[in-house]
């Protein structure tokens, strides 16, 4: 079992919202989807949710589903408004260089061990 902090270091992910107590949360799964209603229905508590959307609605869905964190792939620029809202709602926001598929694979491998 791995924390968000450990996962971020292992995969070289950038932590956009620093919420120390939340970074110690265990990651239990990974889910990738860009349709918000679909994601909301399928995300499990403790999942890393990978999406290319960088709008405020992502923060709302992350908060309602209680996923471990949101990971934006491919170094997609994150809107300032989103980062601010994430900090306010205590939603951990991460950014990675790789594609959603590669990140899913790597996270899955790490948390399975």
């Amino acid at each position, binding site marked *: 079992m791995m924390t968000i902090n450990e996962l971020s270091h292992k995969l070289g992910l950038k932590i956009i919202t620093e919420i120390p107590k939340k970074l110690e949360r265990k990651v239990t799964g990974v889910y990738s989807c860009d349709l918000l*209603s679909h994601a*909301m229905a399928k995300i499990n508590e403790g999942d890393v949710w990978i999406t290319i959307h960088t709008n405020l*609605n992502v923060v709302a869905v992350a*908060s309602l589903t209680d996923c471990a964190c949101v990971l934006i792939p491919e170094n997609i620029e994150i809107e300032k408004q989103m980062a601010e809202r994430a900090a306010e709602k205590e939603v951990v926001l991460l950014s990675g260089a790789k594609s959603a598929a590669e990140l899913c694979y790597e996270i899955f491998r790490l948390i399975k061990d």
Partner: protein
Amino acid sequence: MASVVVRDYIIPANDFTIAGEASSNVRKILSQLGVAPDIVKRTSIAMYEAEINAVIHGNGGQAHVEIDENKIVITISDQGPGIEDLELAMQEGYSTAPDSIREMGFGAGMGLSNMKKNSDILDIKTAVNEGTTVNITVFFKK
């Protein structure tokens, strides 16, 4: 039975800076009341979908929430264009959301089916050019 908590929220039209705030607030209240996490999640999903629909399709509206020790009843109403064919709208994948809304990640056509799946009673009253009222009931105990 007397309601223990009653809340009212205004849902502004097309304002995504606060879309979801009412659902988020209700989620917090339910958690504080010690409602089981899976029930909190089901309620949040159903309410968020209804709230977002009011933002996107209903020109905004209002939410009225009543919580007692057995259940939560959420009423979200708008004075928007109404739903022409409710049966069609209930079908998963059917959506009338414009492209600008789809670009944000909405418009999957799962809103109403998510509401149905996550509520114990779902009642929708709608009339063209008059508006839509969605009633969601979730029981705390099975």
